[in-house]
């Protein structure tokens, strides 16, 4: 089938893809920053901190994103006078973009915090004990030892979360935003060429998703350098025996 519907509307699709990427990047950035205190708080010794955080994470991981999105966007419409009174209507809840970002951020923070929690628990206790032995304060331990290690441990799971969020932004088309899927529905109602459009959009998401997987795979590779053999360990062609012996001793 000639892909006329796609080619004629390429500019609209480009804008849609731009919005999708915008939403993804902003949500992930804010979500990651927020997930650190939340994830750490989840492991806090004090129940006053732990329980509300656990409740928040339970709600946002245990319910569908679409329900959260609708609750925030359409639900806020039920309280316009109240929201207006506290000045949150016109600048915030009135705009579908902010409602979408709020829902996405709350959602991804919860999932990322859980990943971070698992990752922090996976940091070898020996390293933490060593940090304590050095006299590092809790904060310094976190900053220098625990978190860097936790990020590395959690990276594979976080990669999944990144791709999931990227695909989940498609739901904002249901609250009037013109992301890639929103544009797709518009183009379909114009041209009636549903299959062409969905296959095209599916392909775009596929390509970008696998690009993200590859990108994060590269990051994983760089960050696990310390777990691989040192460079030059295998190839010893032409190295002088003396140097070889010397390097062998150092290793």
């Amino acid at each position, binding site marked *: 089938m000639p892909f006329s519907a796609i080619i004629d509307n390429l500019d609209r699709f480009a804008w849609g893809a731009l919005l999708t990427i915008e939403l993804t990047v902003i949500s992930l950035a804010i979500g990651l920053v927020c997930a650190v205190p939340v994830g750490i708080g989840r492991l806090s010794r004090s129940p006053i901190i732990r329980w509300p955080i656990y409740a928040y994470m339970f709600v946002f991981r245990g319910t569908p994103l679409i329900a959260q999105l609708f609750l925030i966007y359409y639900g806020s*419409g039920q309280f316009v006078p109240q929201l207006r009174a506290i000045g949150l209507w016109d600048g915030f809840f009135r705009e579908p973009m902010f409602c979408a970002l709020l829902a996405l951020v709350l959602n991804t923070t919860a999932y990322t915090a859980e990943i971070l929690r698992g990752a922090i628990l996976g940091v070898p206790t020996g390293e933490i004990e060593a940090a304590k032995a050095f006299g590092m304060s809790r904060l310094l331990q976190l900053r220098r030892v625990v978190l860097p290690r936790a990020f590395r441990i959690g990276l594979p799971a976080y990669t999944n979360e990144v791709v999931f969020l990227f695909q989940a932004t498609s739901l904002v088309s249901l609250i009037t935003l013109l992301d890639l899927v929103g544009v797709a529905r518009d183009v379909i109602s114009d041209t*009636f060429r549903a299959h062409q459009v969905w296959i095209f959009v599916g392909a775009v998401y596929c390509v970008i998703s696998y690009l993200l997987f590859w990108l994060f795979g590269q990051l994983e590779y760089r960050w696990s350098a310390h777990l691989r053999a040192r460079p030059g360990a295998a190839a010893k062609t032409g190295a002088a025996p003396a140097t070889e012996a010397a390097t062998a001793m150092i290793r």
Partner: protein
Amino acid sequence: MKKTIIASLVAAAALALVAGTAAADMKKVKIGTEGAYPPFNSIDPEGKLVGFDIDIANALCAAANFECEFVIQDWDGIIPALQAKKFDAIIASMSITDKRKEVVDFTDKYYNTPTHFIAAKGSGITEFTAESLDGKRIGLQGATIFEDFVRATFPKSEVVTYGTQDEANADLVSGRVDLVMADKIALDDGFLKTDAGACCEFVGADYTDEKWFGPGAGIAIRKGEGDLVDAFNAAIKKIREDGTYKKINDKYFAFDVYGEPAM
């Protein structure tokens, strides 16, 4: 595994064939409708389809000796669903337009009512030109004649499209959009006269330009099914002549919704 799948597919096909050939005297016709456009088609608190479109559809089926079954379908997928044969006819206040005629056939119209804007009371919107509505947000149901008209006529306004008319109305109430355009009756009976519609009022004048809004609402049928089109056309004539149409009309409206006799 593979063999079982093929076997069950063949069984399903055989079943469908048998069910199909065991047809009664009356032709079975499935009618697609939205169920979210009061007073023409909506779902009552018991979950039943009601409205002008539904009553007209039932009357037409009786007149054409069809056995009709309704299928609910979201508006923006209603034509693709027709083409995917999920139903055989669309009776959902779908306006006859050239753009749609490229992909489906239409029967003669079965009603025609004008289009109108609504806005919040005291909005102060009195002029309706591309300039005066610069920057205003206009809410519309997507995939409608209203969307095409507004996009072309008011290019400086921000167009926000919704899946259903109700969602557009709800956002007018909450103030997310400044104006909503739709069928005058759907706005009046379906919204302004309800509790939620107390906030808003009609603004501006009727829009009836046939170039944008077509001759009226018709029944959409897949291309190549001329018999079905003719059958419905004959049925429409019949119920207009024998008074059934007037009875249904008067049940819902205080005036004649058919409009000028066209064609």
